[in-house]
């Protein structure tokens, strides 16, 4: 299903990671943004911040809800999507493209094995997603 591209890895907290070499691009899934509704604000770490797998790295807010963002992989923040500050709606409009949040310089590539495949994530959602 196009909602969950097969080239991505997923967390049970509804983040995705696209691993490209020793870097991973990170965002939240279609399901996550639907649950939140209109995203109004995203708080992201600075470039250079160390993040750890499944530890909170930021916060995403809609009008009536707020949710922590969890790092799919450990490493150092290499890039941050600055455009989201002015246009948080990109997370709703294009969660796997222009709505990306971070690029992480991965420190432990083997951690990717602990993430879900698209199929596993969809099965997880089918069971209620939490």
């Amino acid at each position, binding site marked *: 299903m196009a909602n969950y591209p097969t080239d991505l890895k997923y967390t049970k907290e509804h983040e995705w990671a696209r691993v490209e070499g020793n870097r991973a691009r990170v965002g939240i899934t279609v399901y996550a943004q639907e649950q939140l509704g209109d995203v109004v*604000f995203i*708080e992201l770490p600075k470039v250079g911040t160390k993040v750890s797998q499944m530890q909170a790295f930021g916060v995403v*807010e809609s*009008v*009536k*809800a*707020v949710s922590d963002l969890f790092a799919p992989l450990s490493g150092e923040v290499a890039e941050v999507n600055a455009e989201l500050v002015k246009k948080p709606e990109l997370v709703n409009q294009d969660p796997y493209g222009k709505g990306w949040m971070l690029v992480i310089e991965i420190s432990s590539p083997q951690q990717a094995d602990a993430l879900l495949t698209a199929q596993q994530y969809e099965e997880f959602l089918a069971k209620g997603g939490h």
Partner: protein
Amino acid sequence: MRYLPNTPAQQKEMLRSIGASSIEDLLSPIPSKARLSRPLNLPAALSETELVVHLRALAALNADADDHVCFLGGGAYDHYVPSPINHLISRGEFLTAYTPYQPEASQGTLRTIYEYQTMIAELTGMDVANASLYDGASSLAEAALMAHSATDGREQLVISRGVNPLYRGVVATYAEGPNLRVKEVPLADGTTDLGALKKAVSGKTAAVIVQHPNFFGCLEDVQAAAGICHEGGALMIVATDPVSLGLLTPPGALGVDIVVGEGQGLGVPLSYGGPNLGVLATRTDLVRRMPGRLVGATVDRDGTRGFVLTLQTREQHIRREKATSNICTNVALCALMATIHVALLGKQGLRKVGELALAKAHYAAESLSKIPGVGLPFAAPFFKEFVLRLPKSPERVVKRLAKEKILAGIPLKPYDRALKDCLLVAVTEKRTRQEIDAFVQALSQAVA
């Protein structure tokens, strides 16, 4: 009972529809062991007339600012309260509404809060103000917690001894939970000792806190304090008196990051110290760390301008234990009093209030200090409040002047032992030359 409308016949009818034989049936989930087996031990009910007599008698025991000439300050002031305020805030649509959770049925309250936020931002010279907190003291404590989080958890607060001691008490209480350390900076000639301040500020300092005008009435060098504060990477917090800001340079122009204040002087009754009006204003980049409610402008479905509570994800009902503050109920009606007050006084009136208070306070200080043995211990510039050193016990002087229906000031012994022979005197725009002259005469006799 005039507040309980259901008649016995209606109660029976309602019980019948519920399928209960008595109200007692509905109380079945309450364990009988926990039931109160006697009536509450409270005074018997009074009729309206009886109660009015009783409360009038209690009120008559108090020396209020109508019957007495009031020179008391210390964070609460006898300022001009224009007549329309009480009429307008007494309208049931304002008085008996609650938090504007349904904005379509609360545009009156929401608009007044938006106006209030604008007025406070204008007066303080800051970008944004919240919808109110409880009082000046708790606003200051909230600002300190805000600085703690905005500086990534720095744990030291550097606070001037020129800050109202009652406020410092509240800051100490709020600092207890997050375990913040409070370092006090002494005064030199009535204002914060900047040398000592410089020594106190370090890379661990979350905030530097001064009051301006300070508790003793003196004007601080806020800009210099802010410079020292920012060198240490801390946030500069100033507690101010919004009434002064029609005349005085706004803290926003002096490098301040968070401005708090007690807004009681803006049309809120003295009311024995509460409810008051907690003011908090800051810069745009700190808005998401602000405590309390915020109202924002938006549009409705038809494109018509409207107002809503916004950025609510900061608040406890959404973020729960991670909220910026636990505040829920604030003091919206007091904010409305201030809004109406500022609207009535406007651009010119607030400046005039400031000019009058300034002039009268200086006239009083000059006249009082001419009394033999009476002096002004501090030379720093002041606004409407000043310290007077007396040759006799301030407590006794206060007692004696009360007999002449003059509330002479606040004896400073409980607040600062070094000033145990001093009295804090406030002079608002309401005091007349005649009243000040009578005060001077009464004081001369009392200390003679």
